């Protein structure tokens, strides 16, 4: 029974690992390669601003869109209330939240054009102009 359960759980894991819906991307010209979950989290919470000599510029999607909710819950691992409190505290310490864009298209365009920009998009929007550095 235990074996069956284990197998089932393993099998349940396979499609998730193989097909993630959202990715963190940078411009294909960026020097930033791959980042792990903690690093992405630190970048978007502005605890980490550089990758090597490259200044990192995280871009948030404005509003309550699903991709943002997914990013916050999966990567930042914080709910909206916690995020708000975080930025209120940091705001008074001189740290502002990442700039926002109103649409996924804008995020994509921004990441493409701005050096060091880093954003999250649905996987299907990623093309050659972007490079995936993390998936979630």
């Amino acid at each position: 029974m235990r074996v069956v359960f284990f197998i089932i759980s393993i099998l349940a894991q396979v499609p998730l690992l193989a097909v993630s819906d959202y990715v963190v991307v940078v411009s294909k010209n960026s020097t930033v390669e791959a980042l792990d979950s903690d690093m992405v989290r630190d970048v978007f919470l502005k605890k980490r601003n550089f990758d090597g000599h490259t200044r990192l510029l995280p871009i948030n999607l404005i509003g309550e869109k699903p991709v943002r909710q997914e990013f916050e819950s999966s990567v930042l691992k914080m709910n909206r209330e916690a995020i708000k409190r975080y930025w209120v505290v940091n705001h008074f310490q001189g740290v502002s939240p990442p700039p926002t864009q109103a649409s996924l298209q804008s995020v994509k365009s921004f990441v493409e054009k701005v050096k060091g920009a880093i954003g999250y998009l649905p996987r299907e929007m990623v093309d050659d102009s972007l490079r995936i550095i993390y998936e979630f």
Partner: protein
Amino acid sequence: MSFKTKTILLLITLSLIPYVITMIILGKAYRSDYESRLKSDMNHQLLITTDRLDQSLEILENDLRFIASLDIMNDVLTDDLDRRIFKLLSMKKEDMDLIGSFDVINTESIIVASSDTERIGKASDGENFMRIPLFSTFDQSLLGGLLVNYDLVNLSRLFSNDTHLRYSLYDTSLTSGEVTYPENQLIVKRTLQNRPELTVLLEQDYDFAFAVLDKLASSFYMTLIIGTLLITAVAYATANYILKPILLLSNTANTITRTQDYSKRVTIERTDEIGQLSLAFNSMISGMQQMLVRLNEESENRIKLAEEKNRSEMLQNLSTKLSKYLSPQVFNSIFSGERDVTLSSSRKKLTIFFSDIVDFTGTTDKMESEDLTQLLNHYLREMTDIALKYGATIDKYIGDAIMIFFGDPDSQGLKEDAKLCVEMAISMQNRVRELQSEWQANGYIKPFSIRAGIHTGYCTVGNFGTENRMDYTIVGSAVNLASRIESNAEPGNVFISEDTFLLVRDTFDCCPATSVTPKGFSLPVKLFKVKMEDDAQILSINEDGLQLIIDKARITEETRKQLRGVIDNMI
């Protein structure tokens, strides 16, 4: 021009002077001052307006800078795909009611966002009212710019124009700095502090600006006309009020002058200066009337006085002339009223003096009558002076003889009168001796000497004659005796009777002379010769072939020698 006309004109002129001065002040000085005040007010309003415009532009610039600082401006990088900048600018344009547009350009000057969608994608022409640079909020890199296409209407609509105060805004950068200002307007101008190329003009019509003054001037003109009429009427009434009594005074004065009727008076029932003048006039006329009466009386008195004076002078002349014929004592006693000119006489004891010139006829025979008159008058004048000096009463001149008496009308006393008479006789003899030298020096060959006789006795003295012709004299035997004594006296000497001698013997040294029995007297009369003081001093010889007078007191030793020589040679 009559005084009345002058007064009216003067009053009108004096009343108009304030009007004229006011009009001049309103016309020039006040108008200029008023214009300055108007411009000052306009400048003040203009300053408020330009401050508002400057403030408006400042707010605009601040708004744009705020917009430029927003994160949303990062959308320039994505060509404002989400139209977020467009919405912001549109909303801002709507809020500001902007006439024009807000544009956002990228670094290639391509408009990526605009409040006017038609402008998106076009290249900016570079001429913008205001341009704010856009920097990214994350790395401060230049993204482009925020532009404003600003119509000046946005500013001019802030003007609070009204009918007469008009603002206008000039962009001198578009007119090469030359602005044609409207004419016949009060204009003030000011450039905006934030935009020096923008000049705001505030203009006001002259007609409107000075409407108050013109209205005031019109009121003044109307007041001037009405005032002039009123002043003329008042001046006429005042002149009448002042001058009517004066004319009345003048007419009365003329009437008085013409008719010489000083009883006329002026009746003016007033208590002011004119009333006082009329009172003074009446008082003056009254005074003149009284004065004329007095003058008439005085004139009559003066005429009387003049007549009396003439009569008095005539009498004085007559009396002076008459006094020559009378003894001063007699004259004075008559003219002083002491003696009445009546035929009256009194008995008095007097001292009578007689003198005559020795051999008067023989001496004067060969003389011309003029010389004789002169000589005789000289002699009589000298003798008269001496007689008067001693207070004698000269009774009369009888040819060359003189009759004098003492004791009436004035008397010093019998004895004193006799002394004075003898003393007078001695003085006469002495004076005759002196005169002899003068007469001889004047060419009279035979200067005469005189005899003198004095007697004191009772005489009848008074006025003798008739009521129409009387003579004051003395009569009596004493007078005859005195005359006889004189005729028996030695020339150059004074013979006195015994009666006189008894009175003067204490005073004069006398020696007895030969007694004579005068004609008409039965008894001889004893005569005395008065010794003269200078008997021994003066030798006088007057004989045929010899005339000699020697005054020992005056002769000098040399003269004495000459005399001896002459006598020795002659004899």
